[in-house]
């Protein structure tokens, strides 16, 4: 009832979708489709290395978009998102190398296992808000990293699982070759993008944005806020797992690095860089970081230093709209 209490600041500026004007929606979809088609068109003429990076960017973009569903749309900053990505990647790695399981089997098992983990973790994390949510997701993410690192009989520990074979789909082109695999990844990413795009524009997706803006109002309107947040958490984990499956096939290797804290934070950076709550933005942010990391590491050994500076620079110099969205907690806690 304090009339002097600072009101929580508004959410991201770029958040409102083209919902009210179907024309804008179409234009966005068209723009996205054009970008995808363009990527598909230039791929055959690209040299091997840029094509590899492009494939990587496409896959990581799915991971970044999955986090955006949670962070940008629902307002929940997860610091353990690599967990679902990593669990799926490990599942594929282990099944494909030790049991020669095919694509369908790997995909189903990986999505199930990672989504189930998200369902358990979400149950623990959704109870907390603000900083506590951040720290709990961090700690839960570390559980997965710890297992990857220490459960040597299952995960081969620090050595990781190498030689993950790419699936054979019975097509004339082998996915072992870079170009067919790129198209495979592109198609998969487009599907994931479309699915998440529909999700955030659906009635449920609007509910998520409402939660980001005001939980108390949502409760008063009759929403079960917990349920919405929980579903968003699990769905976000599902799409992260989808990216993890692609990653395992792309990289041919799965190791603790895929589930570590820095991977989770890097995904946050991609979302923040591209603009939370836009899907396309985080996808572009993902591409930007992937290219930056790889190009810089070609020219200098000091790429960590530069990447660190990028983190700090993004926070200091990115327009306030990009991060202002997250200054929700009034800093005079009462």
């Amino acid at each position, binding site marked *: 009832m304090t009339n002097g209490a600072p009101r929580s600041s508004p959410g991201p500026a770029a958040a409102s979708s083209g919902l009210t004007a179907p024309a804008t929606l179409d234009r966005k979809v068209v723009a996205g489709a054009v970008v995808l088609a363009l990527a598909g068109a230039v791929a055959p003429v690209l040299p091997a290395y840029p094509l590899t990076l492009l494939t990587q960017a496409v896959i990581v973009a799915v991971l970044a978009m999955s986090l955006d569903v949670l962070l940008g749309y629902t307002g929940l900053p997860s610091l353990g998102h690599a967990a679902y990505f990593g669990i799926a990647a490990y599942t594929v790695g282990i099944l494909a190398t030790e049991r020669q399981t095919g694509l369908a089997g790997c995909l189903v098992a990986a999505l199930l296992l990672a989504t189930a983990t998200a369902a358990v973790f979400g149950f623990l994390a959704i109870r907390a808000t603000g900083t*506590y949510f951040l720290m709990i997701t961090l700690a839960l993410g570390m*559980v997965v990293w710890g*297992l990857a690192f220490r459960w040597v009989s299952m995960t081969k520990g620090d050595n990781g699982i190498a030689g993950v074979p790419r699936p054979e789909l019975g097509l004339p082109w082998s996915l072992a070759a870079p170009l067919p695999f790129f198209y495979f990844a592109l198609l998969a990413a487009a599907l994931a993008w479309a699915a998440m795009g529909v999700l955030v524009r659906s009635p449920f997706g609007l509910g998520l944005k409402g939660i980001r803006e005001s939980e108390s109002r949502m409760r008063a309107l009759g929403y079960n806020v917990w349920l919405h947040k929980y579903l968003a958490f699990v769905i976000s984990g599902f799409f992260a797992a989808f990216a993890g499956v692609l990653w395992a096939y792309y990289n041919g290797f799965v190791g603790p690095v895929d589930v570590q804290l820095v991977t989770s934070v890097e995904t946050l950076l991609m979302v923040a860089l591209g603009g939370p709550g836009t899907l396309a933005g985080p996808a572009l942010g993902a591409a930007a970081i992937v290219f930056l990391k790889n190009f810089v590491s070609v020219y200098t050994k000091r790429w960590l230093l530069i990447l660190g500076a990028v983190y*700090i620079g*993004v*926070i200091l110099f990115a327009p306030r709209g990009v991060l202002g969205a997250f200054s929700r907690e009034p800093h005079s806690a009462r």
Partner: protein
Amino acid sequence: MSAEFWITQAFNGISYGALLFLLASGLSLIFGVMRIVNLAHGSYFMLGGYVGLSVVWRTGSFLAALVAGAVAIALIGIGMERLFLRRLPGQTLGQVLMTVGFALMFQDVALLVWGGDPYTIPVPAALQGIVTAGTLRFPAYRIFIIVVAVLIGVGLWVVLDRTRVGAMIRAAVDDREMAQGVGIRVPVVSLGVFALGAALAALGGVIGGGFLGVYPGADFEVLPYAFVVVIVGGLGSLPGAMVGSLLVGLLDNFGKALFPELSYFTLFAPMALILALRPTGLFGRA
């Protein structure tokens, strides 16, 4: 398993918990006063160890290493707070990303300066012995760690609970805005707490360097431990950091000894349980 096993493991757990306390108490204090989630806190631990190492090499004095490590890292902390973090009040995500940026840069700088090889900080001869009690053997250095942690814990408690400065810090934790409204220079208090937290982590790094060693990657290895301590104990609570450190130290040791492959699981599962029952930790307030 023999009683000897249990006692030795418990002792190891407690001494590791003592080291964690040095790390986590600073993290918890910083969070309490400034609401900053500092992901560079593990870097303070690692850099403290490296600075201590260089000082021992140069001077041969362990004591000088402790002092130099703490002071150097306190200065780094002051620079980070004053020049960067202060620009992001209340922006949790921005703080997380920025402190990770610093952590990556520190990691690279350490690699540049000290190389990729692991080192151990040589400890004074007086701390190298073994204390025996019947058939039990306790390394003197681990006893030293416990003593240091107890002294620092008591010191922190006395300062926080018994002095005017401590009351000012607690006032800033309770209500940052109103603390300014009664004339407390909260920005100065914050800076001091940040420097103290960084210095404690660095102290932990130098001491830890004597038995865990100093090596690249130590920063992100200890960080989750510190976070678990703070989460379990409750953000911003000194007693919470004490109890949390002991709990985590014991769980980690017994976990590693009994279920080596699942040792992280044995550490984090109880944490999850505590959180499910008390989302703000054992001693935390909402």
